[in-house]
C-alpha cells in the first residue's frame, strides 16, 4: 500500500511547485489510474513517491516505510517503470536483471531463474544476452517492466508505460497489471489519456497543475461522464433536432451536429440519420475524455 500525504516538489526556488500538497492512497489489490495533461505533474509525483527525487515537503509511505527516512526498507517493496527508461549500463539484459536483484539479497541462481521467466513473459528471452543499451525504446520499456518485477514487490508505479509499446505489448501489459491486482498488489498507472487506462483501472486520480483535482472510481466516472458525438451532415434541415433529441442534448453549428448524452452509441445515431435520408460525411465521438477535459478546463 502506498500512502502519500502533502507531497510537494519545487525544483527551483521561486518557481511554482511542480506538485502541490498531493494526498493519495493506493490500496492493495487496486489499480489506480493517474491521469493528467502533459506537464500536469504526474511524473514528478511518481518520481517523488519512488524516491528518485526528494520531495520538498510531505511524506510517502510504502508498506509503512518512509521513502526518505527509511529509504532502503521502503524501496524493498516497490517497483517502478519510468516514462523513458535509461539503461546505459554496459551489460546484457540477463546480467542487468541479476545485478538489480542482487540489491535485494536475491541469490544469483534465483535471480537468473526469475529473470529468464520475466524476459520470457515479456517476449525478450531471445534478446536476453543482448546489451540493454542497444535495445529499442519499446524493448527498453518491456525490460523496465521486468526490472520493476524482479524482486516481486507489493507496490508498482508505472509512468506512461503504454507510450511507445506496440499493440501486442499493450495487451501483454494490461494482462500483467490485472494479474498483479489479482495477486493483491497495489498499482499506480499514469497516463495523459484517460481512455487508455479506462479498461484496467479501478479508480482514477486526476492531476492538473500539480494538484489533485479529482479521485473517482471508474464506475462513478462512467456514470458522470457524458458521451459527445459529432456528425458532419451536408443536407441538414430543421427536423433533424427533433429526430435526435431522444439521444440527448442536440446542438447545431453550421453543418455540424453535436449530440451529448449518457451511454449513447455513435453507430445507432448514424443509422437513424441515414434512414432519415441525411448524408453523414464525418463522425467523431468523445466519451470519458470529455469529462477529463472539462474538469481540467473548470480548474482554469
Amino acid at each position, binding site marked *: 500500500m502506498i500512502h502519500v500525504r502533502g507531497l510537494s516538489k519545487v525544483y527551483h526556488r521561486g518557481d511554482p511547485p511542480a506538485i502541490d500538497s498531493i494526498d493519495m492512497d493506493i490500496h492493495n489489490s487496486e489499480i489506480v489510474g493517474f491521469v493528467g495533461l502533459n506537464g500536469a505533474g504526474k511524473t514528478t509525483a511518481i*518520481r517523488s513517491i*519512488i*524516491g*528518485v*527525487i*526528494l520531495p520538498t515537503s510531505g511524506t510517502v509511505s510504502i508498506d509503512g516505510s518512509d521513502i526518505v527516512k527509511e*529509504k*532502503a*526498507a521502503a*524501496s*524493498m517493496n*516497490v517497483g*517502478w517503470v*519510468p516514462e523513458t*527508461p*535509461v*539503461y*546505459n*549500463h*554496459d551489460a546484457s539484459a540477463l546480467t542487468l536483471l541479476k*545485478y*538489480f536483484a*542482487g*540489491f*535485494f*539479497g536475491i541469490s544469483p541462481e534465483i535471480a537468473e531463474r526469475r529473470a529468464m521467466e520475466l524476459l520470457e513473459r515479456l517476449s525478450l528471452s531471445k534478446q536476453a544476452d543482448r546489451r540493454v543499451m542497444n535495445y529499442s525504446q519499446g524493448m527498453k520499456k518491456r525490460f523496465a517492466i521486468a*526490472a520493476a518485477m524482479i524482486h516481486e514487490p507489493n507496490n508498482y508505479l508505472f509512468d506512461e508505460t503504454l507510450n511507445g509499446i506496440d499493440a501486442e505489448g499493450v495487451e501483454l501489459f494490461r494482462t500483467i497489471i490485472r494479474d498483479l491486482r489479482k495477486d493483491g498488489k497495489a498499482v499506480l498507472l499514469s497516463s495523459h489519456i484517460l481512455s487508455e487506462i479506462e479498461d484496467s483501472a479501478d479508480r482514477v486520480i486526476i492531476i492538473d497543475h500539480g494538484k489533485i483535482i479529482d479521485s473517482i472510481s471508474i464506475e462513478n466516472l462512467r456514470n458522470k461522464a457524458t458521451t459527445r458525438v459529432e456528425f458532419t451532415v451536408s443536407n441538414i434541415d430543421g427536423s433533424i433536432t427533433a429526430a435526435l433529441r431522444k439521444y440527448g442534448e442536440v446542438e447545431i453549428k453550421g453543418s455540424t451536429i453535436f449530440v451529448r448524452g449518457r451511454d449513447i452509441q455513435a453507430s445507432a445515431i448514424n443509422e437513424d440519420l441515414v434512414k432519415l435520408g441525411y448524408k453523414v460525411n464525418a463522425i467523431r465521438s468523445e466519451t470519458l475524455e470529455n469529462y477529463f477535459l472539462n474538469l481540467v478546463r473548470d480548474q482554469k
Partner: protein
Amino acid sequence: MKAFFYEFLKRITEKKVIILTIVSTALLIALVYSSYSYSAPPSEPHSGYDFTGALFNDSGSYYFDSYVFNDGSGSPVSNIAVSLTLVNEINQSSVKFSHCTNSDGFSNVSINNVSDPTNCCIIANMNANNANDASSIKPGGIHIPATAAIPYGQSAIRICEFSLQSKLAPSCILAVSFNATGHPSGNLMVYYNYSCDTAGVIPIEKSDILGGEFTNFSVIKFSPKISQQYYYTNIIFIVNGKQIFPTPDYLALFSPAGDLEKAYESVYYEVAFIMGILGLSLAYISYNKDRMSGSYQELIVRPSTRAGLMTSRFFSVSFLLILVSSMEGLATYLLGIIIFSFYTPLTFILYIMFSSFVLSDAIAAISFLFGTRIRSPAGIVALPILLFFLLLIIVPAIVPEILSLFGLYGGVGGSETYNLIILLVSFFNPTSSFSIIGSSLYRPIMKVSSLYVPDVVIWISVMYCVLWIIVPYIGNYFLSKNSD
C-alpha cells in the same frame, strides 16, 4: 550495509575498471623502469682482467700471492704472468720475479734476497702470455712496502668490486682469501656487516655470514644488500671473530637512495598525470557517468540510499587506487633490486605509494562532487579534467612567475619567503602530494624555515594530504543526501 558491500564488490570487479587498473599499473611500472634504466645505464659486462694480492713475510722470505680475475664476472683467469719487481728505494736497484696463474687464477711468487725490508717495496703487475689476453689486461699494479707484509701464519682477505653494471652501485663483491703457500691456517669463518658511519668507526652489532668457509686461496662472490638510505654504506669483514683491516680496507659502497629519488622525480609529472587521469576515469566510470546518463535513477530506486550508493562507489574507487599505488610501490622496490641491487628504503616506497594514492583519490573525490552537483554532460566530464590540469600544470607554473614579479626567487640562494609561499600554495593544491610529502621528507625547502620540526612537519603533511580526500568526500556525502 548489504547493498553497500554488494555495490562495492560489483564496482571493483567491473570489466572496464579492471582493464583500466591493469593498464594504469603497467604504465606506472614502465615509467619507473624507464627512469631507473635511464639513471643506471648498463655497463659493459667485461672490460678487462684485474688482480689482487697479498704479500707475506716468513722470517725474511717473502711470498706474493695473487688472484687474477675477469672483472666482468669475477671468474679466475689462468696463464697470466704476475711479475714482481723488488725495488730498493735507496739505491734504486731492482730485481724481477714472475709466475703464471694456475687454473684457479692464483699464482704464488717467492721473493728472495730482501736484504733491506725497510727500504724495499714490491711492485706487482700482470703480463699477458698471448696477444688475446694482452688487450684485456688493465694497466696499473700493486705497490706494497715490504714492511707491510703480513706475518706468516695469518690470513689475508682482499675485497674487490667487479661487474659494475650500474653507475650507481657495484653489483658484486669479490672476497679473496690468501694464505702463504704450504702453510694452511685452517678454515676461516668470514662475516660482514654494514654501517652507515662514513668516518669508518664501525660498531659490530650484527653480522651476517658471508656464505661459507674460506680455505686456502678461496674466492667468494656476493651481492651486497644496501638497505640504508645514506649515501655511503660501509662493509667490514670479521674473520674468525676478529675484524680485519678496519681501515682503510673497509669498503665504502655508494648508496643510490638519493639518486633513486632523483630518478623518480624525473617522472614525477608523468606519474602524477597517470594517477590523476586514473582517478578521474574511475570516478567517471563508477559514478559520474551514471549520474550524467540517468542510469543512476535505476539504482537509486533499489534498496540503497543516495549517500550509501555514492560511498560504496567512492570506496571502491579508493580501493582500486590503493591497489594501483601499492603495485607501483612494489614495482619500484623490485626494480630497485633488479636494476641497482638496492633495497629501496621503506620510507621512500611509502612516500611513493602514499603520494600517488592521495593525489588520485583527492582528484576522484573532487570529481565525485562534480558528479553530484552538475547535471550537464559537458560540465560533468570537462570541469574535473580542466580543474586537474589547472592544478597540476598551470598553478605550479604560474605561481613562481607571479612571485618573480615581486622579486622573490627560489633555487640555490632563493628566499625563505619564496619557499614558504610555494609550500603554502602546495597545501592548497590536491595534486601537490608528491611535493608536500617529498619536501618534508627529503628536500630542504621546509628546512629553511626556523619552524621546521621534522616529525611534526611530516605528520602534518600526511594529514593535510588525507584531508584533501576526506573533506570532499564528507561534503559529497551530505550533498548527495540532499540532491535529486
